[in-house]
């Protein structure tokens, strides 16, 4: 019984080679088998809830007798089960979506890595000790790398490499920290560490925490380590983007939760740092998102920004803030997954990611439009959708932390609220440019229709969940998923989403009634015109152009200009430094034999000097 959770990792891993074999029989068989495999992990995860809510499963699978304290263990408590359920759920929908979406050659490779990716994410979360977690963490990076470069063009390869290298730096920083903990504490078991609660006694423990923050921060897309994210997420196939943005970056947040909230007793200065980084992440993500013209890149920057909310929530260190962060994690997985799948459906029909080349798609893809609208409103935090509720909890956390004497809390609150409104602004642009306005010239309207069912179904499911989790926030997600993980949550103020929804619907009905009953039916409708001329298709102005203004505003102009050239990208800084050192060393290697012999001689003399006794 105690070892059943391993199946959550083993099922996807075993299915990966089986999927390859099945492809030899029939390609479709492989696709549906993959869906089934992930579905079964999801079902298993759900079935485990009753058991886990009684008692978490924490046991060692394997003990290395020669090294004390080294084990391979699993830790399935409500928090990890919650994340695993989320991963398998979004994973399942994304796989189902892939069966419709993916049409190119070499799909066996795709499904293999997809299964490995989901299995590795499950493993990372399921791992009960930090070394095992690190192993799966690396595996997750590797399989995600292959998914990102799947299209095999220059852009995606470069983005994939950037992602891989940055993740690797983060992971190895984390490894340093894990190894130090292993030797100082004698164990890396998450449960025993959480019970022991590592205190921050000296500067070196602060360094440990910093290394963890780098590792988790790279994965989560935290500023200033986020720069791989807007490159990698857009170039991946859309279902993969949904997985990357929807769940993979959440694994980073999950680790942050474990580290900052459970393992270490964090000082107030760390809360400050987390809040500051969270706020910066929110603002920078959303400011960059505002000016994007690539639909998926825009979404990717919003992932950065939304991650900022989660970090802010954790950073408050107040139960309700952390619960809000966790709830936002769930919500973001739903609506960001949904958004990427919607945009994927649009790309599937139009074959472009450029926002200025769409327009008027709501006529042809009404379901996608409505779902995308739901997701946009959710991510912007409009009540009664789910995004509002979690953001509201985070705000409460910030205010509460202010009461407990945290500095500058008002700034974090402003950043969070400001970020939320800018999010709305940028999604107005997205919705307008894609679904509203008039069709762009290049769009062939004859091809436009709804995406096929395997793609439509996940979209509809996710959209309904966005509404459901917003309207019945207390009754479903909070009650079963969030609050059991986070003890001692007390709400301040009153917000009943069910009642609010009821009132909103009532309001809508009332408005409709007035509209129907009154005499305002006779509205004059005329076609838009410029200078007395009707707007021809070639004169079409897409939503994108309105937002150009932001780029040209005083201070922003130079900032955006530099950001586009990559001046603020720490990856580029590192690259520059490394190649500078290379050139120095390379210049020294002249290929002249006497020079090399002199090096040997000098080296020998230095050795003798050292050895002189």
């Amino acid at each position, binding site marked *: 019984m105690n070892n059943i959770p391993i199946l959550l990792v083993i099922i996807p891993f075993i299915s990966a080679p089986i999927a390859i074999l099945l492809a030899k029989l029939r390609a479709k068989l492989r696709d549906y088998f993959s869906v089934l495999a992930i579905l079964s992990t999801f079902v298993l995860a759900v079935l485990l809830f009753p058991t886990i809510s009684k008692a978490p499963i924490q046991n060692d699978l394997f003990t290395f007798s020669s090294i004390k304290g080294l084990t391979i263990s699993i830790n399935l408590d409500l928090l990890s089960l919650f994340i695993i359920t989320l991963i398998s759920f979004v994973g399942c929908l994304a796989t189902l979506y892939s069966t419709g979406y993916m049409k190119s050659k070499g799909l066996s490779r795709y499904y293999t890595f997809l299964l490995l990716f989901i299995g590795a994410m499950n493993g990372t979360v399921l791992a009960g000790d930090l070394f095992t977690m690190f192993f799966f963490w690396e595996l997750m990076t590797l399989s995600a790398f292959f998914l990102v470069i799947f299209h095999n063009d220059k852009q995606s390869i470069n983005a994939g490499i950037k992602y891989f290298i940055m993740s690797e730096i983060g992971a190895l920083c984390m490894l340093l920290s894990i*190894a130090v903990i292993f030797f100082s504490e004698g164990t890396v078991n998450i449960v025993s560490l959480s019970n022991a609660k590592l205190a921050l006694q000296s500067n070196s423990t602060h360094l440990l925490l910093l290394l963890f923050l780098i590792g988790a921060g790279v994965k989560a897309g935290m500023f200033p380590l986020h720069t791989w994210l807007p490159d990698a997420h857009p170039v991946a196939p859309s279902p993969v983007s949904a997985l990357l943005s929807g769940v993979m970056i959440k694994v980073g947040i999950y680790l942050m939760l474990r580290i900052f909230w459970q393992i270490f007793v964090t000082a107030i200065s760390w809360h400050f740092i987390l809040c500051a980084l969270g706020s910066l992440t929110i603002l920078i993500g959303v400011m960059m998102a505002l000016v994007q013209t690539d639909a998926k890149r825009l979404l990717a920057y919003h992932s950065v920004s939304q991650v900022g909310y989660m970090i802010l929530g954790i950073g408050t260190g107040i139960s309700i803030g952390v619960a809000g962060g966790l709830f936002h994690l769930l919500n973001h997985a739903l609506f960001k997954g949904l958004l990427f799948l919607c945009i994927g459906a649009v790309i599937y029909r139009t074959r472009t990611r450029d926002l200025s080349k769409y327009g008027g798609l709501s006529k042809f893809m009404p379901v996608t439009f409505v779902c995308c609208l739901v997701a946009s409103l959710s991510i912007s935090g409009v009540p009664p959708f789910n995004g509002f509720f979690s953001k509201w909890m985070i705000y409460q956390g910030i205010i509460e932390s202010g009461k407990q004497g945290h500095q500058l809390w008002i700034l974090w609150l402003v950043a969070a609220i400001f970020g939320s409104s800018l999010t709305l602004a940028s999604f107005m642009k997205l919705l307008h440019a894609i679904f509203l306005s008039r069709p762009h010239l290049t769009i062939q309207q004859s091809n436009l229709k709804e995406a096929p069912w395997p793609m439509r179904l996940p979209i509809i499911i996710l959209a309904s969940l966005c509404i459901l989790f917003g309207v019945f926030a207390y009754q479903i997600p909070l009650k079963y998923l969030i609050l059991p993980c986070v003890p001692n949550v007390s709400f301040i103020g009153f917000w009943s989403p069910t009642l609010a929804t009821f009132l909103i619907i009532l309001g809508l009905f009332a408005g409709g009634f007035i509209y129907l009953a009154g005499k305002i039916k006779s509205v004059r409708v005329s076609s838009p015109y410029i200078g007395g001329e009707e707007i021809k298709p070639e004169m079409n102005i897409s939503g994108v152009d309105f937002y150009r203004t932001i780029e040209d505003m005083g201070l922003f102009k130079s900032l955006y200009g530099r950001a586009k050239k990559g001046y603020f990208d720490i990856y580029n800084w590192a690259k520059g430094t490394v190649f500078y050192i290379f050139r120095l060393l390379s210049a020294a290697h002249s290929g002249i034999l006497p020079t090399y012999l002199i090096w040997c001689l000098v080296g020998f003399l230095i050795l003798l000097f050292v050895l002189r006794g």
Partner: protein
Amino acid sequence: MQIMPLVVAIPLGVAFIICLLESVIKEKAKRLSDLLGNLTTFFLLVAALGMIKVVATKGSVTYWVGGWEPIRGIVIGINLVLDGLSVFLLVIIGLVAFMATLFSINYMELYTAKPKYYALFLLMVGGMNGVVLSGDMFNFYVFLEIAAVASYALVAFGTEREELEAAYKYMVMGAVASLFILLAIALLYSFSGTLNMANISEAIACRGINPLIMFSAGLFLMGLGLKAAQVPFHAWLPDAHPAAPAPISAMLSGVLIKALGIYGLFRIFFNLIGFNNLYSTIFMVLGVLSMTVGVFLALGQWDFKRLLAYHSISQMGYVMLGVGLATPLGILGGLFHLVNHAVFKSLLFLNSGAVEYATRTRQLKEMGGLSKKMPITGATCGIASFSIAGIPPFNGFWSKLIIIIACIQTGKYICAGIAILAAVLTLTSFLKVQKYAFFGKLPERLKGIKEVPVFMRISMIILAVLCVGLGLLVLPGVRALILTPAVEVLTNGSRYAQIVLGN
């Protein structure tokens, strides 16, 4: 029947026979030399694997050549010593040599004079086997020279301008190193009055630290450090390794620098001179320097094999760092990395050979999209790249992990940090290899290329499987078989003498 002398004698003998055959039956010798070469290396591999069992049951085995056993504890003859460390290296040499000869069957069609190639190859292998087995300093030196001289000739095998220049540089620097080693051996002889390693070890242990020993330690560090391509004595390697035919590059990077340089350093410093903190620091400094300098230089290379050559320097740095820590965990990590490096680096060189065979170029910029046309080369190269970069679940991950953890265990945080930096840069440069050679679009010029012939494929596949499977070596049961005995030899230190002389 003692098998130990045979692993030295047979390759040397077969090398002679191949030369003889070539002068007698001329053209027909080509196929025959393929067969003889492969049979010999296969025998070496099997014999080495068989010896694992011998070592596991009996511990260390000493063979007195010609039956000249020591009389009343006084050594009068030459001895061969088979212990955990020797058998460890014998297995590596046998494995890589067999893979390289298998690869050569097809690959060496690019060159003429195949029998001469096999003769030199076996000479080199015989020399290396001799180095790791010999129990006295003079034979150590002789075998080292046999292997080194054969390798000079093999580097120059293409006899083009580039090869000759590289071989010349390699030869001059190698000869300087050999002289230093010889001088050091002479000093040890004058100090202890014997050439037998066990006796020298006893003498040093008995008479303690002495300026003469320190001086010869310096000489050894320089000479063997050069053979092991440690910075700042590394400069010959990036010229010599790429210039050689691919299977020879695989041998040079995969085993030669280890069997001559690294093995020599470990044996002499751990078992003869006796390791102390000062040497530990020197080893680690050399290791860290090589690790960083090597990887930084590799990053900007566009010649596939040259890039790999620089990585050999860097990866040997890991081995030096791990073993230099002198803790059981560190030594384990270092030796484990040594075998891993032998596997993935020789695979990478064979990959580069396969690519060169198909495309006739080594310039990464002229390649692209090769994994479409050469799926096996692409996949095996991917595995090897991720192995060397230390990505799980491949073998390089485990050894780097152990080395980094061992650094932290002894509080060498900076070394751990640098090891991590080097790991990231290694990953970077191999992602570059993958990007330019195997990912992306196939250039027009290469539309007609094909996957390489069967024997080349087989050897690459076997090595790739090992890259995945060798991670299992750390598992307790398997580790006790091969890694633990090798680690014990080094941790035993000066007790080597008692073990060899059997008292």
